[in-house]
Each structure stands twice: as C-alpha cells, then as structure tokens.
C-alpha cells in the first residue's frame, strides 16, 4: 500500500521546546505528541508523530502549532 505524502510537515526543534504542550492541543489532526525522553534542559519536548492510522489526514500545514508555540520551535512545511 503506497504511503501517501502528507500535505504538510513540521520540524520541531526538540532542544528549543520547553514542553508547554500548547501545540498538542492546537493541532486539529492530533499530529503532535509529547516525547517520552527528556531534552538536555530537562523538558519533555513535543514531537511529531511518525505513524498514522488509516484515514488520518496527518499534518495539513495549517501552522496552528507554530502559531501558538511560544518558542518558535516549530517550522512548518507545505507540499508544493
């Protein structure tokens, strides 16, 4: 089964993230979860999910996560 490329992609700088988790709630498609391993500063940073279920849209490059992120830790990419 071909894996469809998502409309969008985010890059979270895990060392910049302070684990406030506001992005987790901001994402409409539940793309972001909290990492279970600590970053160097002792926060559990946010992380973009790797695996999605059948029917999940994944990232749509709405940039809501990046908009709400206080640390400018998220870059958002949209498929051309």
């Amino acid at each position: 089964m071909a894996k469809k490329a998502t409309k969008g992609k985010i890059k979270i700088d895990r060392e910049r993230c302070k684990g406030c988790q506001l992005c987790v709630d901001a994402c409409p498609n539940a793309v972001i979860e909290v990492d279970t391993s600590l970053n160097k500063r002792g926060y559990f940073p946010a992380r973009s999910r790797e695996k999605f279920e059948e029917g999940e849209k994944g990232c749509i490059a709405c940039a809501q996560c990046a908009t709400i992120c206080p640390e400018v830790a998220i870059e958002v990419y949209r498929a051309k």
Partner: protein
Amino acid sequence: MSAEVAYQKIFGRPESLKDTYTHYCPGCGHSIAHRLVAECLDELNLREDTIGVPPVGCAVLAYNYFNFDMVEAPHGRALAVATGIKRVLPDKFVLSYQGDGDLAAIGTAETIHAANRGEEISAVFINNAIYGMTGGQMAPTTLLGQEATTAPGGRDPKLHGRPIDISRMLAVCDGAVYIERCGLTSLKQIRQAKKAIRKSFRCQLDHLGFALVELLSPCPTNWKLSPKEAVRWVNEVMIKTYPLGVIKDTTGYEDKK
C-alpha cells in the same frame, strides 16, 4: 513507494528575532509576543530602521532576542527614553516593549505623557497581572482576589484598590490614536494580536500619533499554574476584568475582517 514530494517552508523564525534560546518560562506570553512583533517588523521591512526600548522585567534581556537596535531604560522610563530617540530620529521606527509594572506603576507618568503628547511611538504592553521577574508580587493589574507574594490573601479593594485599566485611561488622551487589548491564549487571539500590533506600527509610519497594544499574557510560573491551566485562566478569568477589543481607534483605517 511514496512519490518524492517537495516541501517549502511556510512558517519559521522571523528575521527580527535572533536564533537564540530564551530564558522565558514554558508557556510564557513574552515569547509569542516577541515573535508577533518580529513578524510585523519583517513584513513592514522595518528591522534595520527600528530602535526598541525594553523594560525592566522579565523582558529586560529582550536585546538578546530581538535582532534590531535596542537601548535599555531605567524601570518605567521606556517611553521617556523612546521619546528622546524618536525626536532626534523621527524617520526611524521606535517601539517600546513593557510589562505592567514598567508601564502602569513606576512608569505611569511617562506613559501618560508620551501618549498625551502624541509621540509617534508604538507601545507593546504585556499585561500578566503580576510582577514576574521579581518573583510574583502584586502588580497594578493583579485581579481582585488573585494572590501575590505582597498580597498573600489576594488583592483586596480596601487595601490595594482595584486593578488599574491603564489602556482605558490612556484613551482619554487625544494624542493616543489607537489602543487595543488582545490576548495570546488562543489561535484566534494570536491572529488578532498580530493584526493589532501591525496596525499600531502603521500608526507610527503614517505619523498619526501614539498607539498601544495591550496583550494579556500568561505567566504560568508566578500564577502557579501549568501552561495549559494558565491559558484557561486568561480566557476564563482575566478576560472578565480586562475584556479584549478595541479601546480607542481614531485612525480611520478600514480593517479587513
């Protein structure tokens, strides 16, 4: 086999913000406010003409984060310092960035008179209803009943007076042409805050006068709430004392909705 898809970046760090790690707490409103200010400066191509005046407060180190010229001011005096800069360099873009103690306690006189003179300065006012940098003392904007280290039983109107609404007080000044209160604790609020900041910058570029955007800002650490709880507190409690919206607008600009 997935097809190779090319992606282009649509959201990243604005040029007016340095690529540094900030000392702000997780969920602090300063970080978002910094980014919005930086985005607006980038969009209006103002970075190289900007001189900013940071406060004494959590954002005292703003010159480590903002990528434009800055001059530190004594506590509360940012708008006097900004006045000196703007009068000597009227073609440059001058903004002040202040907290509630800086702008509405020790700096009240400087704030009112800069607004009253109609100084062509754009003021960013971060209202987090507490004194953050010094560890949680009562601010002039601390809410009734809200606890602070110098009001351990909560703000009491008999002892401390009610929270001050400096933005509405400034609206009386003819020299203040645009004052809006926005939030940073929802996507809709953030988008409106950015519009308001951009509009306050336009007021300066068009020589209309003094403009101020008040931003209700979460302070999880000193409110003793988690970042998500702090967001809720702004949206459910703080907004009742400090409702969002335009407080004054004599600009004549037609806003795109």
